[in-house]
């Protein structure tokens, strides 16, 4: 990433990229007739910053470089935004996105991610596994003597899975400070608001008690996002960034709604949404 340092978009440009990604994500979900717009939109600003804000050290032309930083989407159902990011970053082409959720998809653009798609490290879509996998990668790159960082986006509802806390203990034990978890805390799960399913608060205290380096930000404030992502690694603790977000962020009638967890928009809603995503 160093050589392109000068061309890293500023926060205004990153906001514009995030908006483009939302439009693209909604388009492919609309075309596919199914998908997860709510959680795609809540994660859009975080992913824009990671991939296009000079944070993630990666190169789509050399996707298997062992020294690369890694990105994992543990809340794997939000492929609408993930594949849009991979297209914009050059791992796949925008025309590949036409095969999203379609049989015989050449780039294997399945409803949930799989490593047959360039840029994807491992399958996800069953919640709770990604933090452990990311930690395994963090241990592996450290054994190799690389200073790779491993970023993993978790859903807030996903924190109900016990395995997350197993992994939280492990990363503390092994002092895996190159592991950076980002909680897309959109506060809405499939069935209900997360608080009513099972309340996660006090969430910072939970992670602190597991001995993580805890930060909490507004997950739609690009300045806050880029600042926290640029912090130097903690000398020994793994880091968690609790990003308070809004499910469906950017489209007024989707925001905060469980009903927009896993449905594609109708043609009318699609047009209405596009008018807001400008």
């Amino acid at each position: 990433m160093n050589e392109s340092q000068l061309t890293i978009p500023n926060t205004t440009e990153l906001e514009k990229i995030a908006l483009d990604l939302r439009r693209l994500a909604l388009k492919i979900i609309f075309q596919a007739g199914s998908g997860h717009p709510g959680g795609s939109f809540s994660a859009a600003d975080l992913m824009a910053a990671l991939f296009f804000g000079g944070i993630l050290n990666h190169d789509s032309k050399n996707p298997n470089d062992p020294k690369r930083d890694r990105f994992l989407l543990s809340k794997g159902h939000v492929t609408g935004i993930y594949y849009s990011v991979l297209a914009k970053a050059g791992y796949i082409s925008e025309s590949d996105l036409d095969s999203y959720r379609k049989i015989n998809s050449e780039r294997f653009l399945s409803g949930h991610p799989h490593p047959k798609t360039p840029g994807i490290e491992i399958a996800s879509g069953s919640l709770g596994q990604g933090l452990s996998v990311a930690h395994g990668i963090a241990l592996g790159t450290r054994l190799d003597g690389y200073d790779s960082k491993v970023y993993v986006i978790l859903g807030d509802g996903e924190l109900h899975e016990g395995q997350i806390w197993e992994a939280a203990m492990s990363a503390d034990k092994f002092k895996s400070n190159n592991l950076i978890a980002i909680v897309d805390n959109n506060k809405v799960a499939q069935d209900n608001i997360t608080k009513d399913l099972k309340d996660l608060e006090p969430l910072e205290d939970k992670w602190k008690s597991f001995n993580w380096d805890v930060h909490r930000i507004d997950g739609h404030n690009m300045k806050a996002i880029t600042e926290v992502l640029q912090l130097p690694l903690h000398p020994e603790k793994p880091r968690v960034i609790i990003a308070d977000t809004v499910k469906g962020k950017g489209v007024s009638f989707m925001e905060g709604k469980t009903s927009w967890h896993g449905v594609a928009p109708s043609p009318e809603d699609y047009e209405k949404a596009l008018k807001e995503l400008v």
Partner: protein
Amino acid sequence: MKDAPTRDAYGQALVEMGADPRIVVLDAGVSDSTRSKKFGEKYPERFFNMGIAEADMVCTAAGLATTGKIPFATGFACFLLGRTMDQVLVSIAYSRTNVKLVGTHTGLAVGEDGPTAQMIVDIAYTRAIPNMVVVQPADWEETTQATRALAEYDGPVYFRLGRPKVKAIFDSSYKFEIGKGRVMKKGSDLVIFATGIMVQESLKAMEMLDGNKVTLVNISTLKPIDRDLIMEMASSHKAVITAEDHNLIGGLGDAVGEVLLDAQISKPFKRIAVKDQFAETGTRAELFEKYGLSANHIAQAVKDLLK
């Protein structure tokens, strides 16, 4: 060659393979019993004791595998697999990460801890998973060679090991190969396909029987199974027995039966296995006798089929 549990041979093999920096070993807090501890003592930087957290362990292994490591994720089979179906399916099998799942303490051979620790559904379960290779060695030499072979194989594996001491039956002239069965003794009338500790039990049964009527075949790779050898042996004998320390459903017996059914080979056929029930506490020998797995039961089945 050594009379010892297969888990001991595994622990020793890991140590011997440890010079390869790609080899990493994980355990779920039972490394003294699984014998992975020996690797941890020699190569502490590549040994990850994840505590009693099997789900985290197998996914951590998957992550390590994506960085080019060859992880051996080790635990008691009951918990290693019983706790991790979703993790094994998604992060290992579907992702086709190069993880070796090593389950010790399998079958009724575990003994006194009883059914919570006697894994009898693991062959059925792992055979049913796409991309998974399933191997169960019968003694020290085969375990040693198989551990190496599985490290060289690029892909997910379930390696089924046992708790009790077993006799050495192979010497260094034996060559283990994934997917290949081995004719141990050649007879004329009936063929026994056996796996793991039941190879040992079958050898005992053959000592009880007179003459040279029985052929014994060791099936150490349960998937992909050696179809050609099974078809050849079944066709050239009058009757077939399978023997496994595992439930009747989905194990070696069903795997052999599927081969015979596909090939339309019809022979008198008996499966020696746990009869779709949970056992109880007791010594290995007592449990094998009571639940139909002992050499006596195998010998009786041979007599019945050759009547």
